[in-house]
């Protein structure tokens, strides 16, 4: 076959066919750069492994879909972002029989899929054969047996089942290799930000030997809500509320799934505006994280200054969109608000101010000896671990991988400018912080460049129609990494299935490895460095495994220990031991 005739992603298909001639049952394209390979259930794990490790694939998301009303089976979509030669999205689609509900797990071959597979087990009641971790991921301990929320025929989205047990039966895993460890739980409730999580640190003295954690305490059931209550064209406003920080990135990602699947053309001007606002969002998000880094390294003046400057970027967003957060700008087919000439001028002026202010603050931060001491060599994200788990955003760019959706799979305004991903090689907290600093400066120049080049014309395309059951993925590079959405419209003005993957979802699984080998006082720093919507431990209980004695520490104690590294709150408990 002639090279010119190959469609985007076809080289991966050919390679897959050559390696596993029996596995590939069909190939189709759901959008220009999105190829879907239909696989036999048995060979799907090998196929995913082949695409992942041999074709430079990175795992993005696993979408489960109850397609029984359509074809009598469940379906799984392993979405991989191909980032080597022939960049595109490769989706491996596997059908799961409705009677046995069994599929073959790929988790032993590609560790990155583990959260996805655990989630479809919870949500659809599918059984992953050979999965490496059988625990619940999303459903709480007291959830009734056999009630699978995302099945089409199980429950109304308003249903709140009675708790079935009072006992927490979630098992925290650890590999301590003979070390005599003490368990230190952090969390799960009274969390300052929006992602409550329960951490268990397995410590020996001050050193963290292993860690495990549990999220999803406040699962909001948004996907179910969107599928049953919202219309597909009102979902952008819900998507925007997934995250209080990178909401706009989510709403862009959602509308683009529909635009891609239905081949709706978005006016150029709207594409530029989307990118400009996406970068504005990055400005305030990175400043927030830089502020927190200051705070956790005991440099509170820096924290206050970062937040003072951040306010300017919030004002900028407010001027451009009409709201400080949840900009409400996206509709399928374009955006709702134009950027006027005087707003452009005001923006350029604001960018200059931000540049000067942040330069000063960064100089100040980097010359604080305390900061360097607290971040260098801390929370190492090993390259091997990174490759296995597909983390995203500054977290992986701090470990030397140039993964940035803006430049790998250019979308919107990013198609029209030249940049390359910003990386650091040091793999530690400092590396990740430096990536954010550079990206902040880069964002300023991107906004300037986009504003100068924005073409005129309409901002919304309203003449389109839709065809049910077409699906596509779309992604945006949010401040914390890629936000990836997958959607399929049904035939009743609703989303048949909407799957939203927020960036930090990809960053949690490797966090365990980043904890290992550090001390307790670094824990907050390390969690902060992946920039989750930071969940802070209100209470910490220290349990001595042998005597079962427990000591409860306040958040202040732990936080102040993280910042001053004096008067270890654990000293007393070592006395107990």
């Amino acid at each position, binding site marked *: 076959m002639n090279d010119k005739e190959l469609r985007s992603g076809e080289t991966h298909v050919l390679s897959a066919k050559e390696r596993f001639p029996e596995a590939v049952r069909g190939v189709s394209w759901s959008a220009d750069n999105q190829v879907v390979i239909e696989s036999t259930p048995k060979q799907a794990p090998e196929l995913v492994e082949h695409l992942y490790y041999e074709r430079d694939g990175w795992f993005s998301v696993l979408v489960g879909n109850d397609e029984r009303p359509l074809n009598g089976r469940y379906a799984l979509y392993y979405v991989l972002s191909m980032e080597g030669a022939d960049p595109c999205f490769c989706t491996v689609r596997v059908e799961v029989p409705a009677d046995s509900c069994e599929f073959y797990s790929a988790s032993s071959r590609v560790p990155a899929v583990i959260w996805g597979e655990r989630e479809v087990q919870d949500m659809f009641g599918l059984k992953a054969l050979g999965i490496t971790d059988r625990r619940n991921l999303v459903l709480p301990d007291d959830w009734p047996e056999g009630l699978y929320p995302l099945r089409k025929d199980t429950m109304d989205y308003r249903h709140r089942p009675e708790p079935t047990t009072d006992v927490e039966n979630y098992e925290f895993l650890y590999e301590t290799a003979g070390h005599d460890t003490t368990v230190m739980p952090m969390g799960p409730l009274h969390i300052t930000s929006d992602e409550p999580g329960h951490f268990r640190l397995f410590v020996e003295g001050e050193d963290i030997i292993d860690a495990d954690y549990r999220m999803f305490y406040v699962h909001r059931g948004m996907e179910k809500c969107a599928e049953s209550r*919202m219309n597909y064209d*009102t979902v952008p*406003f*819900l998507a925007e*509320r997934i995250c209080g920080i990178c909401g706009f990135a989510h709403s862009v990602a959602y509308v683009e799934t529909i635009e891609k699947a239905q081949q709706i053309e978005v006016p150029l001007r709207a594409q530029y505006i989307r990118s400009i606002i996406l970068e504005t969002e990055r400005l305030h998000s990175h400043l927030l994280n830089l502020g927190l880094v200051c705070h956790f390294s005991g440099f509170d*003046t*820096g924290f206050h*200054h970062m937040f*003072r400057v951040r*306010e300017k970027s919030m004002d900028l967003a*407010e*001027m451009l969109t*009409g*709201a400080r957060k*949840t900009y*409400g700008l996206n509709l399928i087919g374009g955006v*709702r608000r134009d950027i006027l000439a005087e707003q452009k001028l005001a923006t350029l002026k604001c960018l200059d101010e931000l540049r000067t202010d942040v330069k*000063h*603050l960064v*100089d*100040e931060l980097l*010359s604080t000896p305390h900061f360097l001491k607290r971040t260098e060599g801390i929370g190492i994200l090993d390259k091997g671990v990174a490759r296995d788990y597909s983390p995203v955003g500054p977290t992986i760019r701090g470990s030397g991988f140039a993964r940035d959706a803006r430049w790998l799979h250019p979308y919107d305004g990013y198609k029209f400018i030249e940049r390359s991903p910003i990386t650091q090689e040091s793999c530690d907290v400092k590396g990740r912080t430096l990536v954010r600093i550079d990206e902040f400066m880069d964002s300023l120049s991107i906004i300037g460049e986009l504003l100068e080049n924005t073409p005129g014309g309409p901002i919304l395309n309203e003449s389109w129609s839709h065809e049910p059951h077409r699906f596509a993925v779309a992604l945006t590079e949010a401040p914390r990494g890629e936000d990836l959405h997958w959607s399929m419209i049904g035939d009743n003005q609703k989303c048949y299935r909407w799957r939203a993957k927020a960036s930090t979802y990809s960053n949690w699984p490797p966090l365990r490895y980043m904890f290992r080998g550090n001390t307790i006082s670094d824990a907050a720093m390390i969690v902060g460095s992946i920039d989750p919507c930071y969940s802070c431990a209100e209470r910490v209980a220290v349990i001595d495994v042998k005597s079962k004695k427990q000591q409860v520490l306040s958040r202040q104690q732990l936080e102040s220990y993280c910042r001053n590294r004096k008067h270890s709150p654990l000293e007393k408990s070592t006395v107990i031991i």
Partner: protein
Amino acid sequence: MFKTIKEVLRTGNATVKYPFAPLERPQDVRGKPEHNHVKCMVCSACAVACPPNAIQTPLDMREGTKTWSINYGRCVFCGRCEEVCPSKAIRLGTEFELAVMTKEDMEELCVYHLQACTQCGSHFAPAKQVAYVARILAQGKDTNTAAQKLEYAKVCPKCKQKYDVQRLMEQSKEEGEWLC
């Protein structure tokens, strides 16, 4: 340390007077949706567009009313209502301090009368919409007077259908043709 002090001096005071002085906000910020009950003709376009169903327009056929209601507790200030309203009756203002002492105060409503059909007496559409339609019809150039048109607009679709069929039959009788 020196850098920090310099930065502090450079910045000066960052605090604003709010809440003791009003907060300056851009003019086109999206705050509380302001409903103009005079312009509104309860067409429900906003209720359909509103993502969280903050605006609802329940009908009461027995009372002959249609209620336009908004719950500011549900509103997400997206401005879709403003965008779709055909009579520019709703606009997002700059007010953002919406705290109230009781939940009920979050709700505002406005009750509109439905038009009773002049023939059969049943309610069929908001009276304001009927008047609006009559006004538009009145601009057309034909022999009927505006008053006649208003009278015609006040007939419900069912009666209109009956009336039209009757007229057609009479016409066709006159012309000696059978239409069925």
